[in-house]
């Protein structure tokens, strides 16, 4: 593929060539990149709206399989001295109804709102929503201001308080940026379910396309009564709960 003579050229020679043809330098990468971009793979589509239905009746209060699976898949395994500074993309919340004492247990994570406050408040546009409804952080332009953490009604986001070396290759994480549940976007893009859903042996989590009439989640949401957390804020969350 490559010309062996070229490999021996020094940087000075390369730079001289560049200096000689600034016009080439200015235009060429663009052309090459369009060519390189005509790649395989589907792109996220706005026809799809990914969502998650969680049945708190089936969720056991002493089970945190979803949390462990998330940690393994996304490499959230670092040791953090102050537990309040530890990143948690998904957490189990145990609830007690104040009036009746009835208890519930459920996993809480980024609710992947259709109108996400984090995206509204992000000064640089690092918080963004993909066409298919997955809310992500662009770590390349996140400046770490934490305004999104102030604005999120679900406390779904964590801040990278320390430098990391234990990232999984497909899940970049690091110091100084804000992060949250991605619906395991690296898996979803390949047609897999998020790690938490796959790990839930109680069948309490259904993942799928909220817009697809043939999907399990679509059918289920039509059958049972489910609700969005903090529905009063009208954020149109992608994660729905049943049984609370």
């Amino acid at each position, binding site marked *: 593929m490559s010309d062996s003579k070229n490999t021996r050229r020094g940087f000075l020679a390369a730079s001289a060539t560049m200096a000689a043809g600034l016009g080439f330098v200015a235009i060429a990468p663009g052309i090459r990149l369009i060519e390189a971009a005509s790649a395989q793979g589907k792109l996220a589509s706005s026809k799809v709206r990914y969502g998650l239905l969680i049945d708190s009746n089936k969720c056991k209060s002493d089970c945190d399989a979803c949390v462990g699976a998330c940690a393994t898949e996304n490499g959230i395994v670092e040791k*953090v*001295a*102050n*537990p*309040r*500074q*530890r*990143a*948690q993309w998904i*957490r*189990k*919340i*145990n*609830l*007690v*109804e*104040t*009036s009746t004492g009835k208890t*519930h247990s459920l996993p*809480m994570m980024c609710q992947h709102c259709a109108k996400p*406050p984090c*995206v*509204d*408040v*992000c*000064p*640089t*546009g*690092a918080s963004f929503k993909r066409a298919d409804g997955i809310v992500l952080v662009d770590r390349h*332009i*996140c*400046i*770490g*201001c*934490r*305004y999104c*953490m*102030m*604005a*999120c*009604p*679900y*406390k779904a*986001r*964590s*801040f*990278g*308080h*320390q*430098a990391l070396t234990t990232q999984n290759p497909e899940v970049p994480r690091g*110091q*100084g*940026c*804000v992060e949250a549940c991605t619906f395991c976007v690296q898996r979803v893009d390949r047609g897999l379910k998020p790690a938490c859903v796959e790990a839930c042996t109680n069948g309490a989590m259904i993942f799928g396309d909220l817009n697809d009439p043939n999907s399990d989640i679509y059918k289920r949401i039509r059958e049972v009564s489910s609700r969005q*957390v*903090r529905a009063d*804020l009208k954020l149109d969350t992608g994660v729905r709960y049943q049984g*609370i």
Partner: protein
Amino acid sequence: MFTPNFRYKEGPAFYLLVAAGGLVAAIGVAAAYYMEHMGHIVTNMTNQIPWALPHVFAIFLIISASGVMMVASIGTLFGKNVYKPRARLACLLAIALLAAGLSVIMLDLGRADRLPVALTHLNPTSEFGLNIIFYPTFLTLTSLYLWTLMEPRMNRYSKTVDLANLIWRLMLTTGTGSIFGFIVARQAYGTAVLAPMFIISSFAWGLAIFLIIQRVLYGWSNMVLDPAVLKRMKNLLGIYIGAVFYFVSVYHLTSEYYAKQGDFEHFILIDGGIFPMLYWGGFVLLGTLLPLLLIFHPRIWPKPGAVTTAAVLVIFGALCHLYVLIVGGQAFPMEIFPGMTATSSFYDGAIEHYVPSLPEILLSIGGFGIVFTIAIIGARVLNVLPQDDIAQLKASGSLTD
């Protein structure tokens, strides 16, 4: 016509003041570098309280920057002669305060090295993003206005520029208030009253800072402020203090009125530990009532240092108030599931305890160091020292009560 005397008494005072201010600022920057290098683990900011002490100070400085310009506008726009010689110093302080406030908030960023990203990527729905337009424009208008004051040929434009700047400042402070006003997630924020509250607060805090710096500069130059001038300025500060207290009360009362937020108000005002202490002791007693006494008691205010002490107390009260609003607003558990008590590994439903760490404190105080250093150097190289022609003011009736 009255010609101001530009010659200050030179002495070691200038260098001592600059060295002191510069040292405080340098320590603040060093603390920020340490935070940046080690990560925010060296702070006590957490996933539960992501904004804390540096934000209290930064917001105080930024709001005061817009407020201190009122000193100038009262002279230029509203024609009060006593304030006219004070416009230049107000401009200098506004620039210093804004620079310091932005420095503190920028240095606290998780990725402070990405400042160029913040400047080149703008999300127009974000209050923070809009500030990238608000602040530099404010800086430009203030510098332009200062030029119209200092260049005689430009004098005739000063009113126009100041009017534009006044409108811009009101928008800017509304925007700063809306940083919190638009947060619907937490019980403490998400109310429209925050914007006017921040505006009136800016007037009080800006004037308090002005009075302190004016006192320092007069002391350095062996000058004495005429009691008649001081009386007018301290009376205005008193009115501002009262107005701030009114708005803060309205904020708490409206919040109390909504049944769902009763618990939050109870926390902030009664049983929230440090927060009721800072609110009642810091903001109400030391930051409002005591300054009002110092300012309005006929036998106390003329005493040397009374008004300056009042101004210092106003600033202390302001920081207490902002601390209660910003940190207290996060320490109270976010109500994700109304009507249920929540427990989790992420401290859902738990009241948070925050104690600022040393780097945070040093960075925050460093902000004041930056203000002070810029103000002192600016006052040395620019002709901004307010000098009153008392005879003329009295003759024109500007000093009658």
